[in-house]
């Protein structure tokens, strides 16, 4: 008999099933808190600047990732940017099919060295392209909760 057995039928396997009740809370942190509060209260993006490295961090960091300098210079950056890369999402986090596929993009924000991964709305998959100019669409202020989803989506800027 070989030592390795290939399981060919699931009912041949005896397994004990269990569940571990766990719950996590993930705080935004000091810089993240300020970033989301600015979105919630004012519908604008802020970042931190490392003058030594000439980097503007959006989302903001408290420390420069390159030189570890503490960052206390805050700047507002535009809510516009360009599509750095994109994809069409068909499945949710549990692997179920979405009622409608959704467009997602990494948006490189103007005036910043970072960007945000978010939905792209008011656009069809065939419309989107790398380098496309987009702008953030915020939810109404009373619906905003200080979350990344306070941004409803990014939409193409009509070049008219």
């Amino acid at each position, binding site marked *: 008999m070989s*030592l390795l057995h290939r399981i060919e039928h699931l009912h041949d396997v005896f397994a004990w099933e269990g569940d571990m009740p*766990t719950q996590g809370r*993930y705080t935004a942190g000091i810089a993240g808190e300020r970033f989301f509060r600015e979105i919630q209260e004012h519908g604008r993006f802020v970042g931190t600047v490392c003058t030594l490295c000439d980097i503007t961090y959006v989302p903001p960091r408290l420390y420069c990732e390159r030189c570890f300098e503490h960052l206390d210079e805050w700047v507002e950056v535009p809510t516009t940017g360009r599509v750095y890369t994109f994809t069409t999402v068909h499945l949710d986090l549990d692997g179920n099919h979405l009622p409608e596929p959704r467009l997602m993009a990494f948006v490189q924000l103007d005036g910043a060295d970072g960007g945000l991964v978010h939905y792209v709305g008011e656009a069809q998959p065939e419309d989107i392209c790398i380098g496309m100019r987009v702008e953030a669409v915020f939810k109404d202020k009373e619906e905003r909760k200080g979350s990344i989803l306070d941004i409803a989506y990014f939409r193409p800027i009509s070049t008219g």
Partner: protein
Amino acid sequence: MKEFVYDSVYLRSRDFEQGLALFETWDPNARYAWDAGVAIGGYLKGLKAGKLVGRFCPQCARVMIPPRMFCEHCFCATDYWVDLQDTGTVITYSLCYVTWDMARLEEPLIPAVIEIDGASPGMGIMHMLGDVEPDAVEIGMRVQAVWKPAAERTGAITDIAHFKPLDRP
């Protein structure tokens, strides 16, 4: 580089309850299944079918229960399955007046190690004795498995309800 120490921020439960701190909650789906393995899997399958099975070591010619894929004496791969009796002999036992979670019991539980007939000497399993007065239990007592009805068996050691004294002829 200038030195900087950020003021410590302590978060208390009210900071979360009153929405003073932004946070995400996350409930990971932590369901798991623990594979019983080939040897114990076959053992549990046997229990579901209402029989006790062991494994045979070709080198030291031992029949082992609970079954294992390797002989722990000679490290030799065990060879084949052996059907065993559901009768055996009490090797040791205990009268237990507390439950596992330390509740006091009036009537004791009687866990015992039972050497199974058909397996090599000393090869046994641990189970409960039942249908017996605590005073009547003794080492060397002959016992037999009391199986749950087939429909209630799930492939677990509890498919045997308990062991009861074997009526001597």
